[in-house]
């Protein structure tokens, strides 16, 4: 295999990706791309970001050997890359810090973002508080309802939440509204996209900022196991935590990589978010990638118990990695994820977010009594605090809201 070198200069991962936006946004994206390229070579920027990673986020996040879960599965040795220990409770902060530093350098004075589960919204509101910039978060009305703790967090951090009532009232619609805001306020506003989705240069930029996860995991596993892992597993919604873990391993042919999508009530049902299992290539939010769509190209509503995976598209790099068969993608249902959510809590004393619970569920299902003597790294990209009410309701526990 040739050395992995994606995307192209115009943001193509194979045929996927690109910049499909109106002329109101095109000049901005080109300018953003230019500024990002420049900053990548800037040593001062790197140092600033690394300092923040270390002292503000608490990086490197630990690589925890999940002994009890490994024993329970009776299969491989399982390691958790614990990005849920980051400040704000998920991997999202890595990318937000990178982007806000870029926004500062570009002289932007107003920050907008979209959020699904609220993790990216919280991370954005956090960096805005830190850097003293006004912050506007677009969030689907449905997500506001199911992610109340995060809504309160964002408000505490000084952000303005703008409820989105259009469409399915979740992440996809929040992104539409944020893009509209950006079109209207192009001159002073920086749009911090939280996932590896959207038009170029976002998928590349977000991946690069998140790849600190994989870089650390690589060093850490080499230290404890004296070898590279046999498997990587991460959940995929838009795909930022997964790209962050996968990217530094893509050239290591022997490392098998698995992405786990949210299949909702089943990948073959209409209530799913398993874009790569059930979707076809199309254009959504400025990027050519797999999407859930009907025969006329109308985008379907996604469904998942996890607000962070409830998105009918996926980052273009995942589509590419699927098509070249470098990464295999599987779907996990709401029910399976909820079971894994409980299993992990009981066995490891770690309450995972519902997003990585999908990755956990796949691991438990597919590796049980198999792959002994192998080593697996699973990206535990978020903690479960935000999901307590949702999970309690789904499990049937009477939690007094």
């Amino acid at each position, binding site marked *: 295999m040739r050395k992995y070198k994606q995307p192209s200069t*115009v943001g193509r991962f194979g045929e996927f990706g*690109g*910049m*499909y*936006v*109106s*002329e*109101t*946004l*095109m*000049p*901005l994206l080109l300018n953003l791309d230019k500024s990002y390229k420049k900053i990548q070579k800037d040593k001062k920027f790197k140092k600033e970001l690394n300092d923040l990673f270390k002292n503000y986020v608490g990086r490197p996040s630990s690589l925890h050997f999940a002994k009890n879960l490994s024993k329970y599965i009776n299969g491989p040795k399982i390691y958790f890359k614990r990005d849920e220990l980051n400040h704000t409770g998920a991997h999202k902060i890595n990318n937000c810090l990178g982007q806000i530093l870029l926004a500062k350098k570009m002289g932007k004075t107003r920050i907008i973002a979209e959020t699904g589960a609220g993790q990216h919204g919280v991370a954005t509101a956090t960096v805005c508080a830190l850097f003293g910039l006004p912050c506007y978060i677009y969030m689907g009305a449905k997500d506001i309802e199911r992610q109340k703790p995060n809504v309160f967090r964002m408000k505490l951090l000084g952000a303005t939440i703008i409820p989105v009532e*259009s*469409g399915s009232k979740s992440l*996809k619609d929040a*992104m*539409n509204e944020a*893009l*509209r805001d950006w*079109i*209207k*306020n*192009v*001159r*002073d506003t920086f749009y911090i996209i939280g996932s590896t989705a959207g038009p170029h240069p976002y998928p590349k930029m977000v991946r690069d900022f998140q790849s600190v996860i994989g870089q650390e995991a690589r060093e850490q596993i080499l230290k404890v196991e004296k070898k590279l892992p046999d498997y990587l597993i991460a959940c995929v919604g838009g795909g930022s935590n997964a790209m962050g873990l996968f990217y530094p391993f893509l050239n290591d042919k022997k490392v098998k990589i698995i992405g786990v999508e949210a299949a909702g009530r089943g990948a073959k049902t209409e209530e799913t978010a398993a874009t790569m299992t059930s979707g076809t290539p*199309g*254009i*959504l*939010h*400025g990027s050519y990638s797999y999407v859930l*769509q009907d*025969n*006329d*190209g*109308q*985008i379907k509503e996604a469904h998942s118990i996890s607000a962070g995976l409830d998105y009918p598209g996926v980052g273009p790099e995942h589509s590419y990695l699927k098509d070249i068969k470098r990464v295999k993608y599987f779907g996990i249902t709401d029910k399976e994820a909820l079971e894994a959510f409980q299993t992990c809590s009981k066995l490891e004393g770690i309450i995972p977010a519902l997003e990585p619970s999908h990755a956990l569920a796949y691991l438990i299902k597919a590796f049980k009594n198999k792959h002994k003597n192998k080593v697996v790294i699973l990206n535990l990209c978020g903690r479960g605090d935000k999901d307590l009410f949702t999970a309690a309701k789904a499990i049937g526990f009477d939690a007094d809201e």
Partner: protein
Amino acid sequence: MNNLDSLPKKKILSLFMTCGFPTLNQSKKVFNEMLSHQPNIIEFGLPFSDPMADGPIIQEANKLALRSKLSTQQSLNLIKELSKSKNNTSFVIMCYLNTVRKFGLNKFIKNIKSIVDGIIIVDLPFEEEDAIKKSLSKNNIHLIKLISPMTDKKRSKKLLKNSKGFIYYISATGITGSNKLDYKEINKNVKSIKKMSSVPVLVGFGIKSKKDVIDISKKTNADGVVIGSALIQKYFDIKMDFNKYLKSLKKFIQEVKI
């Protein structure tokens, strides 16, 4: 023959309307009303589930049109049927790329050939247009270009090379929290566009009244206007009473024909 090649020099009126809005049957009546005024251009919006470059009013129109699962083929059939009473009016389709892609470019062109004079694919940037532009021009359909206040001179020059039909200048951008038209800026940018291209320049986005139309004509160098959201807004203003809507549409179009 392409009607866009014989647009008048001044006071061009282009009316935008979403196909299938509010319903497919009512949509026919809406377009017939519009056609009866013989505007220079009618823009047919093909409804899309995620019209990210459109404002909330057109988004709502898209949603209503898609309620009854309106297909691309039905929209194209509607346009074909209306073209019988087209006369000198230019027909332009405005849509998103995913709609064309999923329908199939060749099949799409086959359906609109000799019926439609131009097409605006909102999210198809200049950088990606080559193959599509070629197929369209072979069939005498013009790919209409959008220019925004953010498009700088260097980029405009590239975009406007060999432009056909008209140039769509998007006016209301970059004005935080305000939908007021900045005539000074519009005039400056339109002038600069006209230096680079000989086809008419129409100003769109945010034109709501007869006064706006007259002001654009008097205070700027633009050759005409595009009115879209304001036509749709009327429907919500009269609480979705369709018969009243047709009447108010008639009155409004008479007003803006200056």
